[in-house]
């Protein structure tokens, strides 16, 4: 009877909807972007995967060339959403995209910086003509800085929940008051907690550094913050031998702790940085040994190295990973290495750095910032550090220097120290050495030369960087033959 009512029972009938009435882009968007695009067909090709882009352009061309028309069968249900409503949604989305601080937007902003840099480079190389990457221009809408999620009406007994688009569901101010109780928990857990806390502080320091307008008070603030982190690290005087108890060393055993220290070093004063260097050198054998161990295997702290327990036959009732009573087995901060079942013998430690089974060493992270610290040291301080490395150890017949030669970080640090010493000696600047410094220096040089010649070439590890003045250093103290021998070794 009424022919206008369309039969709803056609789920399979395909209606070809027309293009929805598109809104005028010029209202909201950057004029520069619209200038380069074909306005008649909304160009959605801007952000597609290049493969996808190609497919779509091909199809468009095909349909145009084959003369196929967009069949304009009217979709009677189209247009449910009016353009006013669409504008409103777009406006909300744009507001959400506004961000002042990097925290919200780090990846997007980094991506865009790099894209712009790459395009600028390519433009410089003459590869393309100036094409600005399309920029996102958001409408300038004043964002409410503070937002009370809860409104107290004077004289009322309760709170009224205010919901906005930022937090539609926040009904009450539920503030997390629970203080993390640090006293309990294993050493390792505490160390991990501490690293995370200090890392956040470090990020703030770096943020301040980035924003630095060289205003004096901001510099002051930044150094205060850096000082705070340094104090929190509780770096003890080198007399302490108990490595399991030293908090700073526990932090350094974790890869992220090393990263923290490496990134903190540029922000510290020279004395503080040198103290860190001294501590690291003092405990170098311990750190080198710890570094080679796989972090994922640690399930209890006893100071000594732990062997991984591979349960060959699962005991009845035992969970897959062995747990200590009362200990929490926490995931390592770096992803665990995949175990090669065929290659690894259960219980055996793979310490050969060239083997694919060997866990990645993270001490080299510290090399670059420590190298810079070394480059600024005075001669006396340098001697002090070198003395640490030549001090004989109580438990082991090997000298720290010899152990260092077999470790990538160790050998790089050693070379860096020697190189700096050589630089100081061969330059004209007055050294102001303390008494006994020169003797110690020559002793160290001879010691290094001796150990280098004695250690078999196979155990010597290639350093991260080989300074050029080492050979001239050796030439001054040793005879030609020895120098040639060492040269062959160091290559």
């Amino acid at each position, binding site marked *: 009877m009424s022919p206008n009512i369309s039969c*709803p*029972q056609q*789920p*399979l009938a*395909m*209606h*070809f*909807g*027309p293009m*929805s009435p598109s809104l005028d*882009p010029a209202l*909201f*968007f*950057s004029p520069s*972007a*619209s200038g380069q*695009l074909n306005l008649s067909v*909304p*160009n*959605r090709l*801007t*952000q597609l995967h290049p493969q996808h882009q190609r497919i779509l352009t091909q199809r468009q061309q095909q349909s145009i060339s084959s003369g196929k028309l967009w069949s304009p069968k009217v*979709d009677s*249900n*189209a*247009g*449910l*959403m009016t353009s006013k*409503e*669409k504008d409103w*949604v*777009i406006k*909300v*989305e*744009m507001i*959400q*995209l506004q961000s002042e601080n990097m925290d919200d937007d780090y990846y*997007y902003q980094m*991506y*865009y910086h790099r894209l712009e840099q790459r395009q600028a480079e390519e433009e410089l190389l003459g590869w393309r003509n100036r094409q600005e*990457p*399309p*920029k*996102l221009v958001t409408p300038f809408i004043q964002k409410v800085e503070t937002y009370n999620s809860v409104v107290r009406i004077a004289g009322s007994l309760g709170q009224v929940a205010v919901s906005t*688009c930022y937090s*539609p569901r926040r009904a009450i101010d539920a503030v997390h008051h629970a203080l993390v109780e640090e006293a309990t928990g294993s050493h390792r857990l505490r160390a991990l907690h501490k690293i995370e806390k200090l890392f956040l502080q470090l990020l703030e320091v770096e943020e301040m550094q980035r924003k630095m307008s060289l205003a004096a008070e901001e510099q002051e603030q930044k150094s205060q913050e850096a000082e705070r982190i340094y104090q929190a690290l509780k770096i003890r005087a080198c007399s302490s031998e108990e490595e399991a108890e030293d908090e700073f060393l526990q932090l350094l055993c974790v890869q992220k702790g090393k990263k923290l220290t490496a990134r903190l070093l540029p922000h510290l004063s020279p004395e503080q940085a040198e103290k860190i260097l001294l501590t690291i050198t003092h405990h170098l054998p311990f750190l080198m040994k710890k570094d080679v161990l796989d972090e994922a295997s640690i399930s209890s702290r006893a100071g000594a190295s732990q062997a991984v327990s591979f349960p060959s036959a*699962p*005991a*009845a*009732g*035992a*969970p*897959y990973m062995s747990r200590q009573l009362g200990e929490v087995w926490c995931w390592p901060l770096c992803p665990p290495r995949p175990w090669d079942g065929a290659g690894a013998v259960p219980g055996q430690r793979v310490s050969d750095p060239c083997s694919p089974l060997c866990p990645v060493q993270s001490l080299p992270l510290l090399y670059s910032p420590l190298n810079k610290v070394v480059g600024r040291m005075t001669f006396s301080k340098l001697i002090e550090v070198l003395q640490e490395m030549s001090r004989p150890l109580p438990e082991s017949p090997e000298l720290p220097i010899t152990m260092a030669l077999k470790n990538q970080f160790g050998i790089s640090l050693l070379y860096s120290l020697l190189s700096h010493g050589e630089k100081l000696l061969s330059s004209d600047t007055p050294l102001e050495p303390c008494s006994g410094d020169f003797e110690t220096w020559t002793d160290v040089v001879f010691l290094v030369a001796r150990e280098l010649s004695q250690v078999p070439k196979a155990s010597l590890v290639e350093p991260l960087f080989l300074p050029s003045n080492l050979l001239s250093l050796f030439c001054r103290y040793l005879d030609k033959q020895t120098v040639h021998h060492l040269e062959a070794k160091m290559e």
Partner: protein
Amino acid sequence: MNYMPGTASLIQDIDKKHLVLLRDGRTLIGYLRSIDQFANLVLHQTVERIHVGKKYGDIPRGIFVVRGENVVLLGEIDLEKESDTLLQQVSIEEILEEQRVEQQAKQESERLKVQALKERGLCVPRADTLDEY
């Protein structure tokens, strides 16, 4: 999306046919009529499509309003390509039967697995159907 580089918006997808995958595993196909800032969707002439092996069946459902947080993904359906599919459409009864059989087989294998593990002294915590965390 066209003039907002690096962003995604559903505005361009209005009035087009979409396939929506929900968090509970259901697949809905319908015309996207309306959205809001939470990506809540209004689907028109919706059909719930059940896939079992190479067969599928459609159950017409009418109008759906889907809360945005329940959507896993959604994508526009190319109406030209829609018909070239290797899948075979069957009736609703048949597909529901197939689904029931598949479900049963899965439960059976799960049961065997749990039993085998139990015999070896291991227990696997039962994954809740309601989500992660």
